[in-house]
């Protein structure tokens, strides 16, 4: 099953590369997305399919990430068709092939049960997604792509060094070194502590770069704001979470080694620092897609904080992975519609979105209310449960700062969002704007995503709840 799920999108990428018609090619993506989502649901429903080989296993954590990746890709792939219809000036061959391959390598990340394979998969996500950022071919998108490649490749290099250190930790302890995850979990208590610590730090920094944790986040606002909206949505909701999964793997090994007290303060600090940096840059932010990118940094910070607190916060953290992914999908897709209607991302030139685009404007505003953690939406439940666990476990300072930063971010983000949706439309002096009408393809995906965000806030469906509980149990297994 693993091979089918990983190779199918890659196969579709190859098909996309040979289909000659620019008009038909984008329709391959929804087909890929639908079949992939179907396969994902099948794997989740039938646990028997989750074991393929020793190195490719879909464990409960991988299941959650796979669900988010597949769900988000499904909606983004529909939106992409509408997006590419709008920008039909250049060939979308490379774009469609890379977008499909992107799904394939992210699926590999979720299945990988070998840190070496995981590393290769994460590197591959960088390589196949770089052309997606580059799609607009403006000088700014070239710069964004370059930054994305350079910074993430350094991160990936450090993660490889971290993997080497981890292998050396077992070599030094006199055990046969391995990077197979299950064997590592068994070996964990006997690993050489100093090398394990160093490996954790390097992997946190390395995969943290990809995940967007400050201060290695600098590629993220550029890439997210320059990439086409559906790509940004995939980046924010799915790619960052794949990197988070890699951090979680190392986290679990350290917990098995009894080193939770060593890594917990680091994760809490990194989490709060990411939130603080996001907060600083969000206040007064004029580019609304950039603002969403900083919001992603904030939410990755929340995830790091959540696993740093550990214990009771784990359920909330994993729920937040889902809630954030779905909400960010909604926000980026509706923001993409607004960007197309105005031809600008700057709030000086964009206002009155509620009048010009009643549906997308409303969706954007509602998405904002959801992402800042207001009831009755999904992120409220997850953030509240992390906060609750923080206070319950005696992390008073961290929890207090968490609340304070959420408030700062609420104010900063609110100012930008309200500027976009309220007021009058700007008077267009010169050439008429490129006319953009909300079509079914560009509006229906965010509407369904909004429904999901609301559903997560009102009632977590039983299968998802089981999945989350299984994942928490899986993470919490003690030696």
């Amino acid at each position, binding site marked *: 099953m693993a091979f089918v799920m990983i190779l199918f999108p890659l196969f579709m990428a190859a098909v996309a590369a040979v289909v000659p018609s620019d008009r038909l090619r984008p329709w391959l993506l929804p087909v890929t997305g639908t079949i992939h989502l179907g396969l994902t649901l099948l794997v989740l429903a039938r646990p028997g399919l989750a074991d393929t080989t020793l190195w490719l296993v879909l464990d409960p954590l991988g299941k959650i990430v796979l669900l988010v990746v597949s769900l988000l890709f499904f909606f983004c792939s529909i939106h992409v068709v509408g997006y590419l219809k709008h920008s039909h000036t250049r060939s979308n061959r490379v774009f469609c092939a890379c977008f499909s391959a992107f799904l394939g390598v992210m699926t590999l990340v979720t299945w990988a049960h070998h840190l070496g394979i995981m*590393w290769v998969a994460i590197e591959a996500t960088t390589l196949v997604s770089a052309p997606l950022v580059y799609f607009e071919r403006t000088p700014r998108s070239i710069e964004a792509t370059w930054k994305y490649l*350079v910074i993430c490749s350094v991160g990936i*290099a450090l993660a490889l060094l971290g993997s080497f250190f981890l292998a050396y930790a077992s070599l*030094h302890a006199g055990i046969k070194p*391995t990077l197979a995850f299950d064997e590592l979990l068994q070996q964990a208590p006997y690993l050489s502590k100093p090398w394990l610590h160093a490996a954790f730090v390097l992997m946190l920094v390395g995969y943290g770069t990809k995940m967007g944790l400050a201060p290695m986040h600098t590629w993220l606002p550029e890439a997210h704001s320059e990439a086409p909206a559906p790509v940004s949505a995939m980046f924010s909701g799915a790619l960052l979470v794949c990197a988070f999964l890699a951090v979680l793997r190392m986290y679990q090994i350290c917990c098995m080694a009894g080193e939770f007290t060593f890594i917990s303060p680091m994760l809490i600090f990194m989490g709060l620092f990411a939130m603080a940096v996001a907060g600083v840059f969000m206040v007064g932010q004029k580019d609304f897609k950039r603002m969403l990118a900083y919001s992603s940094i904030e939410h990755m910070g929340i995830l790091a904080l959540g696993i740093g607190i550990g214990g009771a916060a784990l359920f909330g953290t994993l729920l937040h992975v889902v809630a954030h992914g779905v909400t960010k999908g909604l926000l980026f897709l509706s923001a993409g519609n607004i960007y197309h209607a105005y031809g600008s991302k700057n709030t000086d030139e964009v206002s009155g979105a509620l009048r010009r685009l009643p549906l997308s404007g409303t969706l954007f505003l509602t998405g904002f209310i959801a992402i800042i953690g207001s009831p009755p939406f999904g992120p409220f439940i997850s953030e509240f449960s992390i906060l609750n666990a923080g206070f319950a476990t005696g992390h008073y300072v961290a929890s207090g700062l968490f609340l304070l930063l959420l408030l700062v971010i609420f104010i900063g983000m609110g100012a930008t969002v309200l500027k976009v949706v309220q007021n009058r439309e700007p008077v267009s002096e010169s050439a008429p704007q490129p006319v953009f009408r909300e079509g079914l393809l560009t509006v229906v995906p965010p509407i369904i995503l909004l429904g999901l965000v609301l559903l997560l806030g009102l009632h977590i469906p039983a299968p998802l709840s089981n999945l989350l509980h299984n994942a928490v149990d899986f993470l919490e297994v003690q030696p």
Partner: protein
Amino acid sequence: MNPLLNALLVVVLALNLFALGTSRIVTVIKLVSLQGFLLGLIPLLMEEHLGWSATLASGGAILLKGAIIPFMMLRAMRDVQIKREMEPLIGFLPSMLLGALATGFALLFSKALPLAGEHTTPLLVPAALATIFVGFILLTTRAKAITQVMGYLVLENGIYIFGMLLLGTMPLVVELGVLLDLFVAVFVICIIINHINQAFSSLDTRRLVALKE
């Protein structure tokens, strides 16, 4: 333990410092390719009996680091028409001194590291740490895209040196390092296609406003 290996690593370290001290980009490319070639010899010196893994690691490294990538870099350099690194963030002499300091530090630091018995004598660990650090200096303080890529290559060489410790027990994982070269290839392609002279390609005022925040 292995005098030849140590001598080789000393040369590698010296090449690091030369690369930091020169402004001519051709020289940097040549130095780094020589470094890559020398690193390719290490697996042959490490293993007593030559296995397929050591040969593969060695051949791959010599071919990639010593020949293909430098060739591509020279080609890219010809395309974008630059010869010298103009405005480094830290001058050439200071960065050389910084590199020397880092090398000394790495030597002292690795004495304190808990190493497995057979790894205490060769210079592998300090050379790895020092090379990684020098790579970082090149990567962060140079303005030209090509020199930054060379910095990345040096960083990668450092990781490769550390990987040598694991060559005997998990050769396949060590080979993964080769994949990092893929990035280098992509960088070079980027430079050739887009003629990126600087990491920040557009330097008009609008860009400066965008960077202000």
